[in-house]
């Protein structure tokens, strides 16, 4: 006995990339046909006795499935905060057909064993593809390279390495890491934060953006220069050794300028911005509500606008959620004691729509690039981030851009309730997520 195959799906009336409506036929894990041909082929399939489900999607936008290069799934070790299964469900609801799970689990994902475990848990969950990110250094300690080759050769086939949460601040170690991963076409994703400038490993670590607001609130500041100095150093290192560098969660105007400078010199650097840095500012910290505590911290209005402009003009390549779920008690405490991080998988696309599309900065084609095509290209995925065209792997979503919802973290599939968008009215809703030809979200709910 074999399990029954997934039914074929005929999507009618959806607008690929927000353009003219075209029907889409999905069969055997692939986009079988687009346009009038889709209807013809659907008829043929039915005539052959194959089940074809119709998804009526008038008014909805079809986009390639989202790919997140920056997700914290917390498993193994902090299953009270999130598991691969709950995070996968959140991802599917947010329209993600692939997520990349950062290495700061417990134990750290610095061995083949841990990355294989995470990868397998993702397959078991089955709601999105889960790619573990390997740690650059053993235990994220910044002292000694982890067995990057073993992780690359493991069944998880790791290509992305990051000590995210910690900066690889030793310049020699960073150089060696950049060089070493060339052997398997890997890349290093840097969490750019000069530790000494942010009081790391002291009694008074930085708590928020350093500026007018931190001055008034009496919270130790996290200066923009602590991010920019590392990015400047690392683009020069990447140029020197000819390696691929990805900058995680760019948060400042100065960082955008340095990355623009590097790209003009053909340095192989890519950059990511989080949805929250595209909309929220450090003014929110005046409430001392730890839901707004995140690393890098929320910056200023000027930074928000520079990040949007950088994302629109291609200086910034991708959206990365930095989805960072935490249990309630980690946020229901004094600001300086609270954990850093925000959930983001289930709100990311809405924030992009609100800040980038509805402002007229970009169209849906560009949305597909920054949320799907480009992150997939950076990882070298062959079947994610592909165009909505016949013959391509069927990883795609249908979005109702007219929908509007008030964010209620209690309704989220993520275990984390720490959404900074709580109570905000956000546009757009993912109605359908198709993962390798199978609908994992229908009518905005998990299947």
């Amino acid at each position: 006995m074999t399990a029954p195959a997934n039914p074929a799906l005929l999507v009618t009336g959806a607008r690929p990339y927000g353009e003219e409506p075209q029907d889409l036929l999905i069969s055997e894990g692939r986009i079988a046909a687009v346009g009038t041909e889709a209807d013809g082929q659907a008829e043929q399939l039915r005539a052959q006795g194959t089940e074809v489900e119709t998804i009526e999607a008038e008014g909805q936008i079809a986009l390639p499935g989202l790919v997140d290069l920056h997700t914290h799934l917390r498993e193994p070790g902090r299953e009270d905060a999130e598991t691969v299964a709950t995070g996968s469900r959140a991802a599917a609801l947010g329209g993600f057909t692939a997520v990349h799970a950062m290495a700061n689990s417990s134990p750290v994902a610095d061995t083949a064993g841990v990355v294989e475990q995470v990868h397998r848990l993702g397959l078991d969950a089955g709601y999105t593809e889960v790619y573990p990110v390997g740690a650059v250094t053993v235990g994220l300690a910044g002292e000694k390279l982890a067995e990057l080759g073993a992780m690359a050769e493991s069944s998880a086939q790791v290509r992305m390495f990051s000590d995210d949460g910690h900066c690889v601040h030793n310049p020699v170690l960073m150089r060696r890491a950049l060089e070493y991963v060339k052997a398997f076409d890997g890349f290093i994703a840097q969490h750019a934060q000069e530790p000494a400038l942010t009081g790391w490993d002291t009694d008074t670590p930085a708590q928020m953006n350093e500026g007018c607001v931190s001055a008034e609130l009496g919270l130790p500041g996290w200066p923009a220069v602590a991010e920019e100095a590392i990015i400047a150093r690392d683009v020069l290192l990447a140029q020197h050794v000819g390696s691929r560098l990805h900058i995680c969660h760019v948060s400042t105007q100065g960082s955008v300028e340095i990355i623009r400078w590097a790209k003009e010199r053909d340095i192989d650097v890519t950059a990511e911005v989080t949805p929250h840095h595209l909309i929220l500012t450090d003014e929110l910290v005046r409430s001392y509500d730890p839901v707004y505590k995140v690393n890098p911290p929320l910056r200023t209005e000027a930074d928000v606008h520079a990040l949007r402009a950088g994302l629109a003009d291609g200086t910034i390549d991708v959206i990365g959620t930095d989805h960072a779920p935490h249990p309630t008690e980690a946020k229901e405490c004094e600001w300086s004691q609270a954990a850093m991080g925000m959930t983001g998988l289930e709100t990311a696309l809405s924030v992009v729509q609100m800040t980038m599309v509805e402002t007229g900065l970009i169209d849906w084609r560009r949305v597909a690039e920054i949320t799907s095509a480009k992150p997939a290209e950076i990882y070298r995925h062959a079947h994610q981030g592909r165009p909505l065209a016949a013959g391509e792997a069927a990883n795609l979503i249908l979005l109702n851009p007219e929908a509007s919802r008030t964010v209620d973290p209690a309704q989220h599939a993520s275990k984390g309730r720490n959404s900074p968008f709580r109570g905000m009215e956000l546009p757009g809703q993912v109605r359908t997520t198709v993962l390798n030809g199978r609908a994992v979200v229908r009518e905005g709910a998990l299947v």
Partner: protein
Amino acid sequence: MRHLLSTADLSREDALSILDTAEEMSGVSAREVKKLPTLRGRTVVNLFFEDSTRTRISFEAAAKRLSADVMNFSAKGSSVSKGESLKDTVQTLEAIGADAVVMRHWASGAAAQLAASDWTDCAVVNAGDGTHEHPTQALLDALTLRRRWHAAHHGPDQSPRGTDLSGMKVLIVGDILHSRVARSNIWLLNTLGAEVGLVAPATLLPVGVETWPVTVHYSFDEALAPDSAGRTPDAAMMLRVQAERMVGGGFFPTAAEYTRRWGLTDERLATLERLRLGETDCPAMLLHPGPMNRGVEVSSAAADSPLNHALDQVSHGVSVRMAVLHLLLTGADDS
């Protein structure tokens, strides 16, 4: 006013109401029987997550003079040191029957978080939160300044009620960056119409200070000299320089260099002694929130000088805290 959390969000009207009520309360403290019945049956909890005997006994004296029951809860040696959350601690106090929580906390924003939470209905008085604010200290400083300023201009028998600090020029000297006292004073002095000058090395001023309603001086000597309008400061408020800033903090090279450049040395005391309150013949003022580091931010001669109002500040502290508790717990406005 439901809570007293900061001076940044204190209106001029509320600030004057507290100061005027404090003037009334000073009268009580001068009486043989130093007690009013206004808070009989009410319970005030002093919740101290950080040691501060001075501030705690000042609040304790204030509450007792208003006939309130006082409970002192020190986080050291309590369940808090065993990892109990602020939420659970406060809910416990609420269940015991507290009406007001006077909280000193090492975390900036703790009082604001408590007031914004649904953990308690108590009135919250911020008795110092991290490096954010210490509003009752600023209010007692303002009470001290206002008395002298008003008496210098209108004679000692006129009540300063209803007046502010318009025309006054106050220097705050020292570690502004880490000082909750400085932050509270800057906002309150500004609200009350005084001009504020900050005197400190740039390492002890926050990035962002350029947006504050103050004049910044890197040189104490320049700050004591007449400005372009020929005016000199009326008061210098010396902040305590904490030892940990000196040892390995890297904020300034040595204690001796700090003292030479930013301390109230005997030479600068001589300058201060020549200064007058506005156009009057009354001497300028020296304030210190205490405890003083003699020989560091103030010389011994400065500490013992008649210009020094540190002890007035202490006694005014009780009056101001009586006023705050009275206004918050009775909803009364005596002005």
